[in-house]
């Protein structure tokens, strides 16, 4: 397979990601809205979406956003929640060989759940090259930023999100992200172990440790030989 990066693929990436960008916009609005609830300033919401650009970790951080900020815990939790990016960029490695790191390093900033899924689909079918990630990622970044600002400003009009069940939007976003990861029955053991561990840890330890410990516990089911063939 050739390691290439073409503008034609970037164009395809942007075009085919368009429907996905709408759904990104929808929950980016929820993020923008919730940043107001969590007490972030407008500049803080814009900066977090622009520089971090990783939805689920941004949602998680809102829950911990009380001054004085638990900076270490925020950074650590963000790292853990985004560890999946390691796997996603790892899966793109075959199409990066031969490309100079001065182009792949900036390009990988655009890797998100959605841009990765779209790009992986396109390049593994041999239809496109890594340029796909450029178009797809830029479009999603723009949608995410526009949505954050829109949601943030619209939040002023919606005084009590609880009345509309909007406090549940967090949970719903994560549930649909989880459903998107579903590949088959092999996912049941790690997810159950992770959930049960998290409930136990949450009961006994303060803060967000349940995410870290539960996540690691679930992933350790991978040591269980016979279903390691995913």
């Amino acid at each position, binding site marked *: 397979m050739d390691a290439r990066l073409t503008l034609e693929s970037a164009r395809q990436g942007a075009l085919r990601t368009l429907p996905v960008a709408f759904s990104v916009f929808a929950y980016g609005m929820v993020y923008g809205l919730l940043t107001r609830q969590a007490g972030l300033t407008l500049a*803080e919401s814009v900066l977090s979406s622009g520089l971090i650009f990783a939805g689920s970790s941004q949602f998680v951080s809102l829950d911990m956003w009380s001054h004085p900020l638990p900076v270490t815990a925020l950074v650590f939790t963000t*790292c853990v929640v985004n560890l999946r990016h390691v*796997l996603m960029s790892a899966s793109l490695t075959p199409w*990066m060989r031969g490309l100079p790191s001065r182009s792949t390093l900036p390009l990988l900033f655009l890797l998100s759940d959605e841009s990765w899924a779209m790009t992986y689909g396109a390049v593994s079918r041999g239809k496109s090259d890594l340029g796909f990630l450029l178009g797809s990622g830029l479009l999603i970044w723009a949608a995410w930023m526009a949505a954050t600002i829109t949601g943030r400003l619209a939040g002023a009009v919606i005084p009590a999100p609880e009345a509309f069940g909007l406090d549940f939007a967090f949970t719903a976003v994560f549930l649909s992200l989880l459903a998107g990861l579903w590949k088959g029955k092999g996912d049941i053991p790690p997810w159950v172990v992770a*959930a049960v561990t998290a409930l136990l840890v*949450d009961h006994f330890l303060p803060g967000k440790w349940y995410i870290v410990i539960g996540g*690691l516990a679930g992933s350790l089911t991978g040591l269980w030989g016979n279903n*390691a063939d995913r």
Partner: protein
Amino acid sequence: MRIDSLIAILGMAAVTYLTRISGPWLVRLVQGNQRVEACLSRLPGSILAALLAPLVFAVGTAEAVASGITLLVALRFRNMPLSLVAGVGSLVVLRHLL
């Protein structure tokens, strides 16, 4: 903007970027170790499941039922906006009923 907010955001941005670029490096490191690869493949779902568990099971009945509905819609239609509407909508109805 407060200085601690700026530090937190820059720190979070830096570690997120590191996760994005470390994949290819990690591939070279664990290449061939199937157990490590099997564990890594389960990590993303496990993190989400762990994160969700208290939100789903430790808040209330309405939240637990609405979570079930959200998950079913998400699995069936693979459409995030639709799942959001189904989840939030059913929660509002359930809160009135329960």
